[in-house]
């Protein structure tokens, strides 16, 4: 009925027994929880600083330096940690072979976490390129490229040696992630070093902006969408014990999603000096993106057909279902914000931050939490310590998201309208500082929402700690287990 059954680390079928490498999965599961806590706490501090500026301290802990630490920790430490854990777990089972190389897996695990440490330290020291979600300086960028190639070789090596004829949809989304992130990262990070931790972008002005938002938008697409869809495609059917609703829909929305996504970056530069034709591409493809996005949402939600009674009692399925709902919501909201008329109001306001968090907290974090709740008991060969605590986490997270996103919408629209308000004689109605003062109360509510979300995270950490304490990393005797995964079927 839920994520509580113990599992063997062996699989293979057809007589052969394969011992899967679960060490790397355990490592990434734990590191993602650590970075999740750090990243969310730092995010909470940033939110509080906006409402109470006296909470900025000296050179190292003011909002400017804190905010990139928050985004890097939650995107690259937490989310990607769960993606690595989930993909290492899923790929081995879907291919019915151990990962291509244990050494590469270890380099991936330790290398990646060393990068996150270097990121946090260097950002607090002010070493930044100022490109959003690509702030890290060139030596760290090179390290990222190397570790990413290690992951790629490991994944493709495993696919090449797989003992399952067909690659299931979850793998497609992870493959798209591997390829696209490599491309985005390398092109956007091009820079000429001045010294050890200082460089200048290879691109200038509006080209730099164009390339950065091609990267930035697709980082959302290929770090916060495709790999999370991969998690959803593998773990949701497993947990619901239902095959994915439609293979055809998987094919249709996979190819259209990855093709269309890449074009939508310029919607971050509407009304900027970027050539108008490029902005128009951005808007048009953003609107088109609704269809493949909703294809994914529907394929997930319809997988729960006939299993909705389970959703009532299973916090994991609740997280998956609400995550998909938020995915559908934010992938509708995003295209609307890419319309020039709406963008002229929403751009530069809190609406954007609210939009990002409805996706990041609603879709990404909930799906990652559900994945971790599925993985942890299986990785330590035990049952989840408390389903009730997981249920409490679900409700805390939901309340936190609502408390976060709602004031951001309100303050975004409020400030956008105040910026453009004019008196009868055509003069501006409000000074800038009046628009800052008007949204302060919403910044406070938003920080409260963040605090509730962090409280949910703490409940999860306790639950995970107790689960691991009662379990063991050593696998029970392998049996010629039958793995044909529910997810691996048609």
């Amino acid at each position, binding site marked *: 009925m839920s994520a509580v059954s113990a599992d063997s680390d062996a699989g293979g079928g057809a007589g052969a027994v394969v011992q899967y490498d679960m060490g790397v999965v355990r490592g990434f599961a734990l590191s993602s929880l650590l970075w999740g806590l750090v990243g969310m706490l730092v995010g909470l501090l940033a939110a509080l600083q906006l409402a109470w500026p006296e909470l900025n301290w000296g050179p190292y802990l003011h909002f400017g*330096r804190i905010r990139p630490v928050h985004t890097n920790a939650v995107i690259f430490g937490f989310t990607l940690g769960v993606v690595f854990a989930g993909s290492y777990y899923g790929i081995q089972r879907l291919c019915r072979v151990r990962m291509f190389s244990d050494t590469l897996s270890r380099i991936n695990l330790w290398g990646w976490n060393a990068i996150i440490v270097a990121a946090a330290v260097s950002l607090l020291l002010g070493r930044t390129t100022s490109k959003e979600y690509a702030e890290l300086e060139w030596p760290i960028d090179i390290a990222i490229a190397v570790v990413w190639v290690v992951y790629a070789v490991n994944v493709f090596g495993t696919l090449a040696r797989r003992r399952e004829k067909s690659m299931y949809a979850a793998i497609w989304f992870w493959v798209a992630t591997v390829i696209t992130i490599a491309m985005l990262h390398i092109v956007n990070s091009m820079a000429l070093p001045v010294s050890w931790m200082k460089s200048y972008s290879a691109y200038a002005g509006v080209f730099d902006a164009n390339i950065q938002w091609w990267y930035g938008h697709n980082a959302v697409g290929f770090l916060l969408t495709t790999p999370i869809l991969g998690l959803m495609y593998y773990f949701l059917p497993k947990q619901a014990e239902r095959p994915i609703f439609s293979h055809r829909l998987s094919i249709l929305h996979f190819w259209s999603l990855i093709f269309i996504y890449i074009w939508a970056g310029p919607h971050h530069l509407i009304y900027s000096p970027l050539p108008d034709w490029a902005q128009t591409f951005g808007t048009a493809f953003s609107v088109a993106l609704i269809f493949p996005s909703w294809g994914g949402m529907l394929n997930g939600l319809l997988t729960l057909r006939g299993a909705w009674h389970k959703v009532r009692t299973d916090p994991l399925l609740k997280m998956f279902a609400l995550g998909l709902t938020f995915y559908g919501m934010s992938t509708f909201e995003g295209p609307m914000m890419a319309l020039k008329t709406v963008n002229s109001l929403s751009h530069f306001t809190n609406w954007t931050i609210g939009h990002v968090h409805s996706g990041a907290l609603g879709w990404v974090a909930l799906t990652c939490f559900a994945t971790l709740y599925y993985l942890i008991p299986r990785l330590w060969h035990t049952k989840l310590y408390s389903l009730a605590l997981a249920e409490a986490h679900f409700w805390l997270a939901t309340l936190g998201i609502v408390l976060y996103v709602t004031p951001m919408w309100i303050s975004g629209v409020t400030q956008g309208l105040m910026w453009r308000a004019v008196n009868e004689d055509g003069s501006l109605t409000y000074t800038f500082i009046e628009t800052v003062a008007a949204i302060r109360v919403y910044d406070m509510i938003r920080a409260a929402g963040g605090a509730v979300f962090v409280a949910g995270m703490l409940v999860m950490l306790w639950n995970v700690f107790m689960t691991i304490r009662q379990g063991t990393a050593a696998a029970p005797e392998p049996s010629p287990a039958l793995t044909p995964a529910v997810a691996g079927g048609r």
Partner: protein
Amino acid sequence: MAYEWHRPLERKWLSFTLFTTLAVIVGGLVLLVPPFFLQGTIEPIDGVRPYSALEQEGRDIYVRESCYVCHSQQVRPFKSETDRYGPFSTAGESVYDRPFQFGSRRTGPDLARVGGKYPDSWHWLHFEDPRNIEPRSNMPGFAFLTTSDLDLSQTSRKLEVLRTLGAPYGDAEIANAREDAESQMQAVAESLRRDGIALTEQNARSEAIALIAYLQGLGRAIQREPMRSAGLAPSELR
């Protein structure tokens, strides 16, 4: 089965990967390559020049402190924006900006045309504590910039790297970068003292001086000459 054609792809990881690569590369090629060939967006407009040595150092501090997370440098072509900030931004203005600083959120106001809007002394007091100037401001204080030594040991090298990337610095500008920066620092320090700011020697060679030089140059090519000194007492600036 209508989707039988897809089956071979699901069974061949290399073909699948190649098709995936193809699918994600098209949009990037169309959007990223042509702008490089569009002359109108490449040529600097009249009056736009590379940053002076001190301005570039100030800009690097602006980047280091991630000012862009709260301040945009991109005025959009709406009356409400041009009334508030000045003429809207054009591509030719940012040709020497590495990296660009358009920003994505205006927690504070746009700075694309802040150059000359306030006297140097306003910025100094504002860095010390923004609530000196505006009690409702939620900007962090940057008092530490007013006492931290500005490092000019890399300045020549920085301009050289920027020249390699295309900024038209002359040999003399690169060789004398440090001296140029120091003399501009003195000018800023003098204007601060004229407005009654009691600068110590430490203050006069601080990073805040470079940041003020950078901010006072922003948008200048299109807008007014900068206001250097208000001729007002600090109390009158509030």
